[in-house]
């Protein structure tokens, strides 16, 4: 309707810019703002470090993107991250030769809980909100029981490198892990039949079903991917921390959803990009830096944080009519 008037102007932009998720516009603005109030925080090394800081939540956001596109929601990621963290630390227990087998096991466990979510949603028709909320409680309980509330164990330096180290002394290893997964996920979403089917299922499940898409299987796989990515994030987190802990301060759940939605994947699904989610996570990281630099008390921080998120989504993520 009236928004159509703006359309010709938008067409004047070069094609690649048009395709770039609009979050990057906001991201550039935020980096400029950060540079303005704290020039030291935007040196190249610091910007790369932002990518490292975003890596764990970035991995979770990748899985969350798949699930949101399918029209669902995964509330269990936070607990899966914690369980993976606790399991890895306790099982590896400082022994380098355990790293690989435990990593594989933990990823399988994450994917397994994803499969539980997927089964509840597709086979038993449980609303994703409730299914994943239930799993979230169960998985957290398991993490508590497994660790007795006080996780033990530690991570050998070889593995800690992936959380803390720098490749060639400059590029954060964690950021590399994130990038690799993001690119793979992007290919999966845009270049494979699975990705296509996923988008179609999110946009109109009935029509997709009638087009011969295994809608249940595709939805199921989205949850498996989400559980898997959450476990991967847990592994990266434990590599970052070095010990198992139930006391993870990062809010993986709301953080990941916020990043994905800010990145342009609508809450109702049927659309969405990995590049957008990637940018959404970076946006949050820059936002946190700005908040730190502003040195406000928590009350002020929370207010500014909310206002900036509101401003960002108002700026670019207007829902299309």
């Amino acid at each position, binding site marked *: 309707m009236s928004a159509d008037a703006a359309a010709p102007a938008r067409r004047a932009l070069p094609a690649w810019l048009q395709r770039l998720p609009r979050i990057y516009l906001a991201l550039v603005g935020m980096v400029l703002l950060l540079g303005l109030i*704290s020039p*030291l*925080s935007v*040196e190249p090394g*610091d910007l790369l*470090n932002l990518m490292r*800081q975003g890596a*764990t939540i970035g991995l979770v956001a990748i899985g969350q993107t798949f699930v949101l596109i399918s029209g669902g929601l995964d509330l269990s990621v936070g607990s899966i991250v914690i369980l993976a963290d606790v399991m890895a630390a306790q099982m590896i227990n400082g022994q380098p030769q355990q790293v690989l087998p435990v990593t594989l096991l933990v990823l399988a466990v994450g994917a397994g809980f994803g499969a539980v979510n997927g089964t509840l949603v597709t086979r038993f028709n449980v609303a994703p909100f409730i299914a994943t909320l239930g799993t979230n409680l169960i998985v*957290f309980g398991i993490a*508590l029981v497994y660790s*007795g*509330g*006080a*996780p*033990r164990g530690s991570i050998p330096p070889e593995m800690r490198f992936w959380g*803390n180290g720098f490749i060639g002394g400059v590029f954060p290893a964690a950021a590399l892990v994130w990038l690799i997964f993001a690119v793979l996920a992007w290919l999966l979403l845009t270049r494979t039949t699975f990705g296509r089917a996923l988008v179609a299922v999110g946009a109109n499940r009935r029509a997709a079903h009638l087009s011969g898409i295994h809608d249940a299987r595709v939805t199921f796989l989205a949850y498996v991917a989400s559980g898997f990515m959450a476990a991967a994030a847990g592994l990266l*987190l434990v590599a*970052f*921390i*070095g*010990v198992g*802990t*139930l*006391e*993870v*301060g*990062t809010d993986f759940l709301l953080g990941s959803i916020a990043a994905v939605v800010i990145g342009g994947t609508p809450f109702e699904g049927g659309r969405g990009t990995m590049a957008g989610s990637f940018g959404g996570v970076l946006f949050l990281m820059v936002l*946190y*830096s700005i908040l*730190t*630099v502003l*040195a406000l*008390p*928590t*009350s002020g*921080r929370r207010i500014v944080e909310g206002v900036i998120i509101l401003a960002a989504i108002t700026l670019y993520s207007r829902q299309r009519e």
Partner: protein
Amino acid sequence: QDEDIISLRSIDYLNDTSIAMPEGDAVDTSAFAKDEPYTIGFINWSTANSWTVQIVEEVRDEASLYPEIGEFIIVSSEGDADTQISQIEDMIVRGVDALLLIPVSPDAIVPAMEEAAAAGIPIVVFAADVNTDVYVTKLLTDSVQFGRVQGDWLMEQLECQGNIIVLNGVTGISTSDNRRLGLQQAIEACPDGGAGITILAEEDAAWAYDQGKLATERMLAAYPEIDGVWSQGGAMTQGAIDAFEAAGRPLVPMTGEDNNGFLLAWQARLADGFKAMSASEPTWQSRVALQAALRIRSTAFRCPPSLKTPLTCTCARNTPMRTGRIHA
């Protein structure tokens, strides 16, 4: 570690005034006397926290020593006052013979506590303060003092001059707020009233390693000159240490709390002259609380309305690895 706990078992805390210092006039609790077995309820404030896990383990162990305990119910409020109110109400319905309570909020749970008291349930409050006197006894270490001790140490290290960064727990939770208050008092106690100290940045890091490290990284990126770190939690301090080293910045004096990871990290850097201190609230206070509850119910016991457990602290002069109660 197990041995330490066992050795602690035999202690009669209530008669050892060096451990539990009575304050105020003792009251007669004979009105509460009742035949065993007892059903005891314990409302913990959170489960996913190694300090409270230790609290729970110790009280569970202590409870196993007393055959007169018929049932010992442990639930946790997960830091939520509304949940805790409901749990107190549920304990009333359950008809527990005594209630051990770590308050989540100093005021919000008062009406529920009043109700429990009115229902004849003796309450033993410990580990966090509450603004009412309907409990039978209360067992505390002082959170303000905790922050103050940390702050005093840091001021001493910095000679009241320099830039510091602050890592809090969760603003709005009394423990976090009170410790922070203690820091403020320490700063203001400087000869110049604190004018020489600048708080560059301050953040809530939820007592967690990852948030402590991330917050410190952001602060390091923004501020080239940081002279001290006041952190009110050990895991956060450990994160701060790692962040300083990752940024290639020399370590500055840091405060922390009794936490194994932090203490180990500190010990490893002792030789390099890293200065740190650790304050600690004893986890065995839960044992004291349980003993008090049982005495209130079983014997005519003159119970002090308030007990103070000592705040211990480990400073650079001492060796950092203290006796047993550190969870390995």
